[in-house]
């Protein structure tokens, strides 16, 4: 059965963006409201499974509408959308009983993660982690990166920060690129130096390898392949209808290697390991 979604937002752009993001086989937009008042009325009439609610709207804002809806139906599942994500707003949303807050501009996987997470919540009281997205696709890649490094190379490693990638990725010398298709398309890039790759490869295979050894490249390709397979399986299991699939990996080595995906919005996950630093750039076509 499809999940029925009520979209309340004064921007037609957002209505269109959400309609584009939701896989038709899993979701149905059952109603659209332009302001909080319409949102409250439509909620009562349509009894949707989940609501996406803008905060700043004319006539009645999203927080007031959410309060009204939750008073009549404490089990209502509401995702608040806002361009602002400051602490006060998060606190206020939490206090009302909002289970999820998504900052605009949102990426399609984040929206699908939020929907999946909110729909999976069954009558749980409270709104802990309202603004957290621990199940986000980035978290799936972070976990997969760490687990695969530990599993394949037996390495001690610690996750560094994850931050948006601005512009071109300047490679340290070796980059593995792997395309992702499905409801969302994008790519994941594993970047490191050739020296670190050699060390990693040595730890994975228990032998020493030279910088020119092709086997190092094949090993890094397989490493990214396994890591991405684990991450996308996890994402697919959490989010209905996303259907992510992987293209085969490609490995590039060279000097002043720059990697540019003009259509993709990406984040970079940093990882410090005993063999050296690794970066994982995960990006999808922007919503």
């Amino acid at each position: 059965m499809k999940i029925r979604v009520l979209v309340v937002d004064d921007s037609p752009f957002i209505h269109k963006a959400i309609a584009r993001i939701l896989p038709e086989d899993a979701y149905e937009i059952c109603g659209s409201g332009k302001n909080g008042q319409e949102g409250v009325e439509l909620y009562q009439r349509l009894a949707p499974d989940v609501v996406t609610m803008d905060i700043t709207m004319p006539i009645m804002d999203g927080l007031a509408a959410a309060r009204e809806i939750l008073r009549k139906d404490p089990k209502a599942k509401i995702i608040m959308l806002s361009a602002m994500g400051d602490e006060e707003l998060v606190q206020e949303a939490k206090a009302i009983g909002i289970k999820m807050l998504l900052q605009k501009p949102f990426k399609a996987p984040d929206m699908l993660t939020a929907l999946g997470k909110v729909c999976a919540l069954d009558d749980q009281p409270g709104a802990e982690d309202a603004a957290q997205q621990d199940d986000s696709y980035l978290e799936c890649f972070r976990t997969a990166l760490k687990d695969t490094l530990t599993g394949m190379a037996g390495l001690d490693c610690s996750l560094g920060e994850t931050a948006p990638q601005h512009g071109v990725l300047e490679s340290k010398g070796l980059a593995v690129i792997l395309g992702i298709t499905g409801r969302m398309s994008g790519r994941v890039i594993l970047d490191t130096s050739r020296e670190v790759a050699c060390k990693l490869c040595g730890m994975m295979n228990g032998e020493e390898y030279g910088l020119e050894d092709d086997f190092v490249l094949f090993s890094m390709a397989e490493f990214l392949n396994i890591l991405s397979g684990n991450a996308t399986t996890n994402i697919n299991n959490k989010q209905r209808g996303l259907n992510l699939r992987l293209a085969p990996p490609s490995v590039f080595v060279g000097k002043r290697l720059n990697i540019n995906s003009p259509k993709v919005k990406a984040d970079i996950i940093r990882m410090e390991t005993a063999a050296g630093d690794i970066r994982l750039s995960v990006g999808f076509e922007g919503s």
Partner: protein
Amino acid sequence: MDARMFSPFVDTFFQVLPGAGIKKVERGRLTLKEKVSAARDVTALIGLSGGLRGNIAMTMDEATAKKIASIMMMGRPVETLDDMAQSAISELANMISANAMTIVGQNGFAMQVTPPTLITGERISCIVSQVKSLNVEIYTEAGMIEINIGLES
């Protein structure tokens, strides 16, 4: 691997390149290789998955890339391969993948494509998927574009 699987991809280039305003598109040498490699200055890489898995890598020298970017931007001079020029080449790659997806779909394969990734640098060597691949040289007014199509059967 059935060599005929490659033909829709090759056809795509002969439809899209002239359509994008690149003249004198002629086919050069055609080679079947054990693995794909794409080692010129500029490479646009597109991943394929779904009914057909593989990669298409379009690789060329910097001078060719600049001329192509210029043609894509209505003849505007291109001195360096800046963001704008890279976007133009990426757009060409996008047109190629969209066209390939349509043609392959007509042949009964539900293939999906990734957005293009552009790789630039010096002394690049690479391995693009460890699969049987077809290497096609395409000569154009802008210079030679080498196409590598790697498909998993």
